[in-house]
């Protein structure tokens, strides 16, 4: 934040437009560069949450999957607050392969 932004905030004015321009550009370029449309990103977000929530209990509301870009490199950043780890469904998982092996 610059001094101007701070003064603007104090006076309840809109922030200077250059800051807005930069933020909007960074967001739109992250999408342009990865060639992912918001719909695909949303689908990916849902699937990632689904996979992760099989192992740990996550806060879906707080969960955030977004694209960030720096130096022309775009990264998919997932921020998923963990409420608690789930008890591992180890027994069930282990018995499955044995069962399928005996079938074969």
């Amino acid at each position, binding site marked *: *934040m*610059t*001094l*101007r*932004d*701070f*003064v603007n905030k104090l006076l309840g004015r809109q922030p*200077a*437009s*250059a*800051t807005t*321009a*930069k933020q*909007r*550009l*960074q967001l*739109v*370029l992250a999408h*342009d*560069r990865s060639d992912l449309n918001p719909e695909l990103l949303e689908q990916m977000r849902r699937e990632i949450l689904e996979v992760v929530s099989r192992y740990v209990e996550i806060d879906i509301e707080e969960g955030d999957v977004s694209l960030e870009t720096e*130096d*022309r490199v775009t990264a998919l950043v997932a921020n998923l607050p963990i409420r608690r780890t789930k008890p591992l469904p180890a027994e069930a998982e282990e018995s499955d392969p044995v069962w399928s092996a005996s079938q074969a």
Partner: protein
Amino acid sequence: MPVTTSGSRSILICSGKGGVGKTTLTANLGIALARQGVRTAVLDADFGLRNLDLLLGLENRIVYTAQEVLSGSCRLDQALVKHKQEPNLALLPAGNPRMLEWLKPEDMQTIVGMLRESFDVVLIDCPAGIEDGFKNAAGAAEEAIVITTPEVSAVRDADRVIGLLNTRGIKPIQLVLNRVRPKMMANQEMLAVDDVTDILALPLLGLVLEDEQVIVSTNRGEPLTLNGSSSPAAQAYNNIARRVCGEDVPLIDPAKVRRGLRAKIGRLMHTKIF
């Protein structure tokens, strides 16, 4: 891949978005290079909407174009229009817009290859957009200068173009930031120079301040660099030419262009506090 002619350079001037100053940069850089003794050819690769001839004041002297050269109905030197005041500069005019129907990247490579045999630098004025016209022009270049203005639409389009240039292995790719308004930048109502270079991750080849003289010079068909003008844009174009030749010329600081108390307060307001 373009044919490499030792020592000669082919530089694409592109932007993605239209109207940000590609042709003006090509004309002014071409003249500035020529004045430094560099044998320079400027190629109008914008066959659809050609204008380079107009900015250079050569529109009435065109006899043949790139089209006749390609079809073999004239020699290259017959089509080249030499600038009267600056004989180190020659223009190869764009052909008929119908050329777009059959023109291929190989054709552009042929033309540029021919130019590189007799010139030190070939500047290719690229059409706007990222379609065939761009691809044809980019296919004939080894280096690129991307020009943009500090506006979201221009920066976004520049980013697309840079991505395409990167995949083609064109390098170096350098940036020219055009129509910079120091006052608006100081008021943070225009993207800062660093914002643009950070976002596009390109080295800055030049900063051109918004300058009314550019319009005056295009009205006359006499690029600013032709007559030793000392206007801010003329200086910027001359500096860009020197940097293209490898000279180390410091960039202007838009914040220092403005003097006085208001400018000082403006700079203070720019300080990052957290």
